[in-house]
């Protein structure tokens, strides 16, 4: 089970890489403003969602970087049993860069009860997602 997203950015590869390689950039403004080093653990924090340790798994400049984070449990050190893997791949396209993001590993981790409830209550932002036919099945039988 994974989430795949991508976006095309009109900026040079080096510029996009420098941003994507900052560990925990997606969490919010408060994260280390330097290139991640594989195997290192970093901390990024969000004013309301909490503090997230982010592990740099693979750093392959300037096109690929992978992190682990335990998004469902702020403050927990990411390991395979409690975290998802986030991979960013950069490909030059025209004058810009296509950034592809894959977050995987949702089917192998345990979520804390409060997170399950909150997530189940959350409203959807649309059906546009990679779920291997989940949507079709749910709609066909409802």
């Amino acid at each position, binding site marked *: 089970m994974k989430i795949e997203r991508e976006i095309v950015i009109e900026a040079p590869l080096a510029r996009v890489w420098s941003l994507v390689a900052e560990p925990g950039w997606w969490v919010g403004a408060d994260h280390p403003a330097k290139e991640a080093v594989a195997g290192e653990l970093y901390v990024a924090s969000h004013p309301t969602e909490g503090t997230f340790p982010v592990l740099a798994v693979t750093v392959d400049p300037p096109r690929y970087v992978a992190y682990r984070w335990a998004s469902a449990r702020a403050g927990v050190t990411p390991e395979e049993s409690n975290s998802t893997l986030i991979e960013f791949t950069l490909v030059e396209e025209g004058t810009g860069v296509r950034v592809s993001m894959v977050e995987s590993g949702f089917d192998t981790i345990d979520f804390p009860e409060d997170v399950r409830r909150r997530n189940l209550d959350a409203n959807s932002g649309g059906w546009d997602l990679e779920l291997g036919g*989940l949507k079709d099945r*749910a709609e066909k039988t409802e």
Partner: protein
Amino acid sequence: MTVDAVLAALADPTRRRLLDVLTAKGEASATSLAVGLPVTRQAVLKHLAVLDAAGLVSSRRSGREVLYAVAPRQLAATARWMADLAARWDRRLADLKRMAESP
């Protein structure tokens, strides 16, 4: 019935196939499900038990057999949850784009 039980149940290709077949048939017994799949009736029953525990199928007795059907509520809730996570990534990537493109 929780998200992780649903995700773990869906992680297995045979169980996904079972859901597909059940969706197509509407309702079916373990015996008739085993006919169309490369697994034994015993294995089908085990997979159905996992799907049942995750709230993904329902069952009812009809004469001498038990008939299974897809229960859509948990599937829909899990799909909503994944869609919410995906929407968060759209926002994060849009923020990244804004930052990278600003002079």
